[in-house]
């Protein structure tokens, strides 16, 4: 009985607190994405914007480890019984990926563009062996510093 109550408490805590924290995180991501839209990034290996002069280029990285909440994990476990899209993990990966890219952009103030961006995902398991439900996202690329060529109309 006590174990059941504990389970319900965790479930409710996960649902309310987890949902609140996630919406907070998403609004922060949207705000920062809007601010950093001036720093374009591409996964192409060529320059996105023609440069008049390149001062320097450097490797930049951004990473985040993020965990799913208790409620969503249970929902995902149930979902795996019948199959189909697991929405709770979709939002987890979405926010982790966007956060990693944002951190990469934030790590190079003054750069004019980031090229050759690669995103890598890995999952982390805890010592007990049961899936901890957390993922590590790493975004890396080459930041280009220098003078952007003046273009007409842009």
């Amino acid at each position, binding site marked *: 009985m006590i174990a059941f109550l504990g389970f319900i408490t*965790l479930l409710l805590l996960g649902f309310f607190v987890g949902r609140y924290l996630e919406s907070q995180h998403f609004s922060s991501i949207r705000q920062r994405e809007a601010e950093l839209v001036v720093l374009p990034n591409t996964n192409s290996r060529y320059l996105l914007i023609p440069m008049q002069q390149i001062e320097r280029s450097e490797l930049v990285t951004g990473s985040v480890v993020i965990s799913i909440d*208790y409620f969503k994990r249970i929902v995902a476990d149930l979902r795996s019984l019948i199959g189909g899209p697991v929405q709770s993990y979709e939002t987890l990966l979405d926010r982790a990926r966007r956060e990693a890219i944002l951190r990469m952009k934030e790590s190079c103030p003054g750069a004019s563009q980031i090229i050759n961006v690669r995103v890598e995902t890995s999952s982390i398991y805890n010592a007990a062996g049961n899936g901890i439900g957390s993922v590590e996202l790493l975004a890396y690329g080459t930041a280009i510093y220098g003078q952007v060529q003046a273009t007409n109309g842009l």
Partner: protein
Amino acid sequence: MFITNTETLPGKTIIDCFGVVSGSTVRAKHVGRDIMAGLKNVFGGELRGYTELLNESRDQALQRMTDQATQLGANAIINVRFSTSSVAAGAAEIYVYGTAVRVE
């Protein structure tokens, strides 16, 4: 030392190539971080301890790769790739590799 993950170093010319250099590190998290992560698992959200840990390991792996390149007489590393794998429970391996070159 210039480090990029593109095949060329933008704005520079490669004059010499030394081949692949790599650096790796295996790290385990300590118990305190694990307990905090357990709590965080209920609410969801970022596990800062782990983010920090992986950043530290990545810096160390990069440092080892850079040392190797310096020994070869290179002054830049191009086409750098990262890879992470969990080798054992509670431990992660970070592996970084790239091509050591000399630029003008």
